[in-house]
Structure formats: structure tokens, C-alpha cells
């Protein structure tokens, strides 16, 4: 089992898509929302994913295909 902490950033129409629901339903991945903010037509969700690494990765690939930005929670490690 692996764990990954990620942030989804949505924009426009995608906010209406049940991306997190389907991620948990269509992939063997447990989703656990820790923090979120949605305003008007954009927003973000910080969540933890649990599952085997391959499932998490293919789940995240699918999320990206829905037009959602996926970034690590710690932001970028590479600094100036």
C-alpha cells in the first residue's frame, strides 16, 4: 500500500464533474479529503490517496485527462 498527498486544482466546467467520486469508484484507490475551497468556477482540493502505487498513478493520470491540475501537496521541491 502506498499513500500520496496531492492537490487538485479545478477550473471552469470541471468543478461540476464528480472527479473525486469517480476516482474512488473506478480505481482501487481510497480518497480522503483534508482541505478544500471552491469559489465560483474554480477551486482546489487537498487530499490523500491510498492504494497500490500503480493504481494511484493510473488514477491520477485519468484525473489529469479530465483537465484537473494535479500537484504534490508540498508544492515544488526544486527551489530557486
Amino acid at each position: 500500500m502506498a499513500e500520496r498527498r496531492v492537490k487538485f486544482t479545478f477550473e471552469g466546467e470541471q468543478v461540476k464533474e464528480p472527479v473525486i467520486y469517480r476516482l474512488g469508484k473506478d480505481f482501487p484507490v481510497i480518497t480522503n479529503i483534508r482541505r478544500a475551497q471552491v469559489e465560483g468556477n474554480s477551486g482546489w482540493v487537498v487530499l490523500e490517496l491510498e492504494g497500490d502505487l500503480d493504481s494511484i498513478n493510473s488514477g491520477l493520470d485519468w484525473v489529469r485527462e479530465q483537465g484537473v491540475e494535479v500537484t504534490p501537496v508540498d508544492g515544488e521541491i526544486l527551489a530557486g
Partner: protein
Amino acid sequence: MPHVQGLRCKECGRDYPADPIYVCEYCFGPLEVAYDYDSIQESISREKIKEGPLTLWRYDDLLPVGRENAVDIGAGMTPLIRATNLGRELGLNNLWIKNDAANPTHSFKDRVVSVATTKALEFEFETIACASTGNLAGATAAHGNKAGMKKVVFLPENLERGKIAGAAIFGNVVLVRGNYDEVNRLCSELGDNRRWAFVNINMRPYYSEGSKSLGYELAEQLGWQAPQHVVVPVASGSLFTKVWKGLNDFAKLGLIDDVPTRMHIAQAEGCSPVAKAVIEGQTHPRPVIPNTIAKSLAIGTPADGIYSVGIVKESGGSATAVPEEEIADGMRLLAETEGIFAETAGGVVISTLKRLAQQGVIGPDEQTVALITGSGLKTLEAIEDQIDPPVIDPTVESFDDVVMGAVKN
């Protein structure tokens, strides 16, 4: 003497011990050092600060670790210069340049790394590490050497030569064949199962505190007052938030009267997620893939972006995304007027300043500080094609002909 209570989650406020940790286990929010301000208040005074060392360690009452064992190669207390020539050019009569390129490894990163390395030693780490687009690498490697620690510094292979050499001279630099994401992923994997002090990961709460010293210095050097405007180059937004925090710390402790400062974000068009969020009225930046010549500002998912946007609002500041082709212009303008050769991030700042003056966001007599955070010698590529000095034969005729002729024309 540190007055640290522990770490506190910036989002949910949960308290943690002052350990090498950086993220809240409940809400995944970032952890920040929490201080006992009553105890600081009893210890600190203008006089005491003035008697301290001529480095950032003079403010150690407000840092997470004391100066007794500081890893100190002289970071901080850089010149604050009255920029009369540049001011005349821009129509600003009260303009100041804070020249942090005058730090030991030529960028403000010496501040954060001096604090992070000192704290890492206190935690008894043997190895200090970072992943960097240049400035952080040099600072980390240099302070690691001073501390007698082992070090590992990761750089993307496609970096400016000056940045690679400026870090590699200190030893133990590793060039990574890969893009930003890949370097990030590698380092987060490496950080997971090695007892390394990663300055920008598990040391981040302590590291970022070092940037507050820039705010403290501005206030002290301006005669114990906060300026009306500060223009700050933004990558992750850490420096921006900590300069603001620094000024507010001083006000809270009565070292200055108040903070009338409006905080201005400077980013390059090719990587401007924070500036765009402000301009578009969003509270949070949307991630971008960086594509800018200001490589030291090339962070597409800024960790402190949300907080930076909030500070712009709170302080009545602004944000500017400078067109890429104006970055070198900014570098040249500063060099030609003030004799300071800044890196691309400085070009972004000066071009932002110029726009703010033109737009009337900064009034002609309002006290303004522009932060120059790194040296132009590390980013020669940015101006190379603009540099075209005349070449002459070693004769007076040739001098008169080529040089004086050119002057007359």
C-alpha cells in the same frame, strides 16, 4: 536566545513540537514556527539589535535558533542604497535598492540557508541537501562546507553555466537529466527514506524564517520604520510572505510604529501563477509549467502562492507579470543607473517597478524599496546578446575613429 514555542499549522492551527517536520498530519497544511512574543518583547530592543553582529544573526530573538552556534559566512546586513539615478529615471524621489546580491554566495538564499543549516546541526543531521535552480544550491553547498556537514545538491542539467559553477565549486553537486517535475519527484523520493536535512523540505519551517531578516533590515536601515512600498520577486512566495511577516513582527514588538507598506509581487510572464491569480481576482494560483528566462523564479506550483495573494489584498499591494523581453531591459536599466548588476529576478523587479511608477500605483514621493535578490554574474546568458562593446586596434587613430566617432554620432 530562541523563543520558540513549537511549530503550528498555518491552516488549522494545530500545534507540533519543533521537530524536522513540515506538514500538518491532519489537514496537510504547512507548518510554521510559533514564537512566544511576550518573551521576545522582554528580550529585544533597538539598542540590543544595534549591538549585535553585522549579519542576520543580530535578529536571533526572532529566529528559530540562537546565534551561539550559527553557521555564519556573513549572510545579511546587505546595503540599502538610495537610488537617486534610477529614481530620477522613473520619477520616484524616494527610491531605495536593497542589494542582497551582496550576500556571500551572491543571493538572498544565504539568509534562509544560514538558518536552516544551523538548525540542521542542532537536530544532529550529518547531511544537508537541496534541489535547486541555482541560488539555493550555491548557498547550501557553501554553508554545508562551513558547517563541516556532508552535502548533496541537485541541479537540473540545463541550468545557466554560472549557476552550476557557482555551486559546483563547493563540491558535491549532482546534475539531474530531467525536467522540473522529475527533479522534484526524485528528491521527494530520496527525502522519504534518508536522514538528510533537505533545506526546502523537512527544514522548510526553519529555512523560511531566515527571509524575515530582510524585512527587519529594511525597517532598521530606514531608521526604524517600514517603507510605503516593497517590490519583491516571487517564486514560491516564501520571501514575499516573510518580508511582510518581518515588518509586522517589528510593529507587534513596538520596534516600529506601524506597517503602512503595500506589498508588490514581481513575476516574469513565462511563470506568473501568483501574479495572474491577483490580476484575475482569484484567491489561489493555478499551476503552470514554467517557461521563463528568470529561472530562479520558475516555480509553477508556488507553495506560498495563496498566502502571497492574501497579503497583496491585505496590504493594498499589486502584482505584475513582466513580459519576458523586458527582463533584460530591467537588468540594464539598474546597471546603467545605479551600478548594480542584478540577475534576471532583479530585471523582473526593476521592470515591475517601472510599470508601477508609470501607472501611478507608486506615487513620486512615496518611500519605495526594490529587492535585488541575486547577482547578474550568475545569469550572463540573459544579457549576452545585448552586450556589444566596440573592438579597436591598439592605436589612437582606431580609438578616435571607432570610439570617439561613435560617441559623436
